[in-house]
């Protein structure tokens, strides 16, 4: 228990260093754009593939489970849309990104630590924590919500495709369901969640990488820990934010 408190304390101390005044704003702007490409644009493919398949699977499962003459088929489109917006495109995409982006951040920063690149920055007088971590946090908080929007759109299109290809329902009914009882706040809610998740994934992964010690084996361990802890904290905050924002 004491160890967990120690870890939390070190995490907040690191965040204090991360959010201290940057050396030169122009350098940070350049690094944020670089990180947007590295962490965000490079994740579009994975997000798109997973979203289209999940959209298809949700539509298929809904059509199997809502197989009653008393339930209108359009509800399948409605359920697919709500599932994608409320949970999949924020929480599940965040868990997937924790695996991809989180492990990449932890191993990148961890390798920099054990190869003395971070020491080299410190010797130059650079605030290494801020220089390395802040652009990643800002880039992901800006870009991950776009991935959420993309995931929602692609998932919904996936559902429509499977409806059209397999003939389980008339695509027009699916579209009717999509337009049924739409609340803009659901989008706001999912985007707020994703901004929090982006911060959690990048800051926790960077923390484990920054304090990696020893050799490449330790970097691997740090990377695994980063993913596991990020996932658990994402799920915890999913619950907390849902309670605060929806109920």
């Amino acid at each position, binding site marked *: 228990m004491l160890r967990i408190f120690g870890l939390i304390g070190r995490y907040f101390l690191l965040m204090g260093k991360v959010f201290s005044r940057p*050396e*030169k704003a122009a*350098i940070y702007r350049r690094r944020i754009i670089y990180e947007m490409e590295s962490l965000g644009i490079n994740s579009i493919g994975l997000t798109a593939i997973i979203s289209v398949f999940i959209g298809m699977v949700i539509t298929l499962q809904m059509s199997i489970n809502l197989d009653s003459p008393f339930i209108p088929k359009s509800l399948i489109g409605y359920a697919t849309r709500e599932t994608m917006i409320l949970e999949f495109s924020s929480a599940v995409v965040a868990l997937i990104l924790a695996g991809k982006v989180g492990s990449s951040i932890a191993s990148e920063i961890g*390798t*920099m630590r054990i*190869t*003395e*690149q971070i*020491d*080299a920055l*410190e*010797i*130059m*007088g*650079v605030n290494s924590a801020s220089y390395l971590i802040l652009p990643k946090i800002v880039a992901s908080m800006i870009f991950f919500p776009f991935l959420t929007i993309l995931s929602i759109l692609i998932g919904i299109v996936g559902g429509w495709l499977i409806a059209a290809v397999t003939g389980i329902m008339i695509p027009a009914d699916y579209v009717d369901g999509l337009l049924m009882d739409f609340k803009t706040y659901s989008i706001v809610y999912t985007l707020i969640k994703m901004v929090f998740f982006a911060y959690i994934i990048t800051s926790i992964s960077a923390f484990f990488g920054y304090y990696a010690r020893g050799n490449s084996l330790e970097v691997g361990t740090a990377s695994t820990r980063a993913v596991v802890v990020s996932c658990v904290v994402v799920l915890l905050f999913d619950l907390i934010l849902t309670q605060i924002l929806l109920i």
Partner: protein
Amino acid sequence: MIRAEHIVKSFDGRVVLDDITVEFETGKTNLIIGRSGSGKTVLLKTLVGLHEPDSGDVWYDGVNFTRLGFRERKEIRKDIGMIFQGGALLDSSTVEENVKLPLDLFTAKSEREKMERVNFCLQRVRLENANKLYPAELSGGMIKRVAIARAIVMNPRYLFCDEPNSGLDPQTSIVIDNLIHEITHEYGMTTIINTHDMNSVMEIGEKIVYIHEGRKWWEGTKSEILHAENRELNDFVFASAMAKRAKQVAE
């Protein structure tokens, strides 16, 4: 001049540096020598502030570095250049970007002025046409040259080198040694080199400090080291078969 006073440093209860007091002279190539695990790297990292000593002080030209806060240290660090054992170049940046980074962060120079300085430093370490290469595309010797260029780009007053010859062939080692020696005299820097390479000692050592089991065992010049009457030092200096034979022949 850099002075370490009564430095003690331990890790998990194991004393690595035990009451070390030593002075490194300005405009000279100062060498810290000793076996692997003797505490050389810990001493070097304590001098630059990467490790905090358990007790003792480090003075940079009369300023007590150990007692300074983060911001004051930052100012002194702008006068420090360091060459790490593996080069420690940023993997995601090109040679040019690596060398230019301190200029980008701490100067108000124009892009053209910065590039002039970068190219000057790269030429000074005799590394041309490598600006756009990444560290992964460089040889060990080239990495060390880029690290030297990056270390001198801000015109530092203090240069620290942690085993600059490790992993290099004997010829390249001599080139790197001579380069550091030339730069030290050219810019009047206080240079401290960590090494266990006796060739470096005989080539460029002006002041030599021998560390053994975390304690300062001996200090002197390269001419004195050959005649020192210190068993541990002699065991270290004449460890190789070739050195032993040379000594026997001389005697």
